[in-house]
């Protein structure tokens, strides 16, 4: 079993990087590029599923010492149930979006954009996300972040049009700043403890002065908070995401913020369990949920509206993490898995809408349901899922979180439960607004230049390629499938939460059962 882990764990990081190099070398042969990237990501999906099965059925946590250096000297890659689950969801989403973007690229004739760099960049992004999920070392986590951010900068400004450069500037500068904060935190953590290995840190940080702990904790939270887009560090997101091409926005919305959430989960459970900042996180979660959704309600553009709901729903996950109980963590883990799928699907559907109608502004859209009933179905299912209508996984995830909040039973928890319910209702309102106006009502105004400015030049009226519809439909099916397998999935997330709270499975696996020295 352990031998399998040795092969499987590095695969999601190494294979896309290798494939990225290969596709860069084959820049002039688009067909070869497509084959390589689809194959590489398919293998990554298979490997991630295998890792999940291995961790959930097996010992729970596996670690691989990269280069054969033992954990304290070298950098370990660690997979526990949480990271394995994240890997599976992220790799499935990445693959689906890749197929979608290929079909769109083929249909659009790929003019004006240097598509030869699309594949390498996309693969590097995938490698960075996997690296962040698997890293057992704070500095390697930073490197993972930088890999995925560097790739995301390029994807966001692809083609270098004026709108994308403008949006990209905000995004790049804010991301650079968050990386700097994170790097400062790493330097200070090293100064305080003499290690950046997360397993060892979880032991050594206990002996650090509580005030110093608080500073380190807050620095890490601010760094990750910017990446996860929690209020008040979220203002950059609705500004920068909507201008990118639809598949790029989809994969960003699904994955990049979740990497931040994942890092927050690790900080809260492994490094600073029961830290002083956790109470602060509760209020941050509330503000994120409520302010985010109020922003969404005020929007007239589907992409921007979805970006705001993305911010808002990050609040749910932070809520679960901030509760710090097994129920809260389990709910948060489940919600992350659900939300990655659903949010990505919604952005892909928006891409289809943009393609069909030439705009994503609600003022210009209308009666889409009559024109393309299939699109209506594709939008309706994930939209209701996002709003949390009973049979879907969004409902189950929210229910789990609210239940966990009620179980804690303190008054801030009750306030957050109320906030969660209100947010859910407002999400339903915002989504219903899109549903009504884009799919049923007649367009109220002619498409105006200013509002439709976000929409990139697409060919209105051309047939939507099958290659775009199939991956979207597949992701919608995965979203529904999460509801079907909600029982086992909640089982996994419960066990993951238990592992996170115990901490010993993680530390003893990484440090190979050696009792770490206390103090530095």
């Amino acid at each position, binding site marked *: 079993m352990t031998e399998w882990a040795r092969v499987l764990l590095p695969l999601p990081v190494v294979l896309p990087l290798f494939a990225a190099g290969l596709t860069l070398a084959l820049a002039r042969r688009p067909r070869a590029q497509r084959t390589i990237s689809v194959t590489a990501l398919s293998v990554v999906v298979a490997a991630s599923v295998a890792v999940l099965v291995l961790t959930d059925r097996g010992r729970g946590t596996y670690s691989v010492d990269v280069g054969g250096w033992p954990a304290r000297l070298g950098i370990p890659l660690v997979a526990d149930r949480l990271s394995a689950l994240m890997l599976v969801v992220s790799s499935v989403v990445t693959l689906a979006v890749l197929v979608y973007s290929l079909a769109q690229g083929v249909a659009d004739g790929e003019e004006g954009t240097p598509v030869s760099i699309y594949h390498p960049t996309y693969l590097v992004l995938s490698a960075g996300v996997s690296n962040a999920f698997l890293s057992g070392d704070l500095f390697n986590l930073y490197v993972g972040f930088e890999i995925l951010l*560097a790739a995301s900068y390029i994807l966001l400004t692809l083609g270098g049009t004026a709108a994308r450069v403008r949006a990209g500037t905000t995004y790049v500068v804010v991301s650079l700043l968050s990386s700097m904060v994170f790097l400062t935190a790493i330097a200070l953590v090293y100064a305080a403890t003499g290690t950046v290995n997360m397993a060892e840190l979880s032991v050594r940080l206990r002996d650090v002065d509580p005030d110093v702990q608080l500073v380190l904790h807050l620095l890490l939270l601010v760094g990750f908070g910017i990446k996860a887009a929690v209020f008040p560090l979220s203002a950059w997101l609705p500004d920068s995401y909507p201008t990118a091409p639809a598949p790029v926005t989809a994969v960003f919305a699904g994955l990049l913020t979740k990497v931040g959430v994942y890092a927050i989960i690790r900080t809260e459970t492994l490094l600073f369990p029961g830290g002083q900042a956790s109470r602060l996180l509760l209020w941050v979660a509330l503000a994120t949920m409520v302010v985010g959704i109020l922003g969404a309600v005020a929007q007239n553009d589907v992409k921007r509206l979805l970006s705001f709901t993305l911010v808002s729903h990050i609040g749910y996950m932070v809520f679960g993490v901030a509760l710090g109980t097994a129920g809260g963590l389990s709910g948060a883990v489940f919600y992350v898995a659900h939300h990655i799928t659903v949010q990505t699907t919604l952005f892909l559907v928006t891409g289809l809408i943009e393609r069909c109608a030439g705009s994503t502004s609600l003022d210009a859209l209308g009666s889409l349901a009559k024109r393309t009933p299939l699109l209506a179905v594709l939008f309706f299912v994930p939209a209701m899922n996002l709003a949390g209508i009973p049979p879907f996984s969004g409902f189950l995830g929210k229910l789990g979180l609210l239940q966990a909040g009620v179980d804690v039973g303190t008054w801030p928890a009750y306030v957050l439960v109320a906030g969660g319910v209100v947010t859910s209702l407002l999400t339903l309102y915002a989504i219903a607004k899109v549903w009504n106006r884009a799919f049923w009502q007649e367009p109220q105004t002619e498409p105006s230049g*200013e509002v439709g400015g976000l929409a990139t030049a697409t060919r209105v009226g051309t047939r939507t390629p099958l290659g775009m519809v199939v991956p979207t439909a597949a992701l919608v099916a995965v979203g529904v499938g999460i509801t079907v397998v909600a029982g086992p999935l909640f089982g996994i997330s419960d066990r993951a939460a238990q592992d996170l709270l115990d901490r010993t499975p993680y530390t003893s696996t990484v440090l190979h059962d050696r009792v770490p020295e206390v103090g530095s």
Partner: protein
Amino acid sequence: MSPNLTLIVVSGVLVACGVALLLERTLTRVLVGVVLLGNGINVLFLVASGRPGRAPILSGGTTAETMSDPLPQAMVLTAIVITLGMVAFVLALAYRSWQIGGHDEVQDDVEDRRIVRRAELDETSASYDDDTTATSSEQGVSP
């Protein structure tokens, strides 16, 4: 461990200048800010590495006691490379911005401008004038 005061001051000044420049609207200044900020933090790593010593190479009689901590130096090297890459990208972005618009100032978002204009006109929602729900929730955002 007593930290090196000079290094801390250098790091502090670099970070302060970096942050000040980062708040500018011109992308080139932001770029210089990023460079200063990155270097300030790199110096901080040297502070974190503790007592200075001989080169961390096991030859010429250097022992573990006399060498300086190699790990922060490895991390600084990585960070320098990453910052360099990012700076190159921002430089390209600034150049492209200048190519498109003739300047490299960071522009306002179109949507932000629209909302500001709405606030100036004291107008609540362009499309939902008759709907009180949208109005009240929108006012909830502003305080």
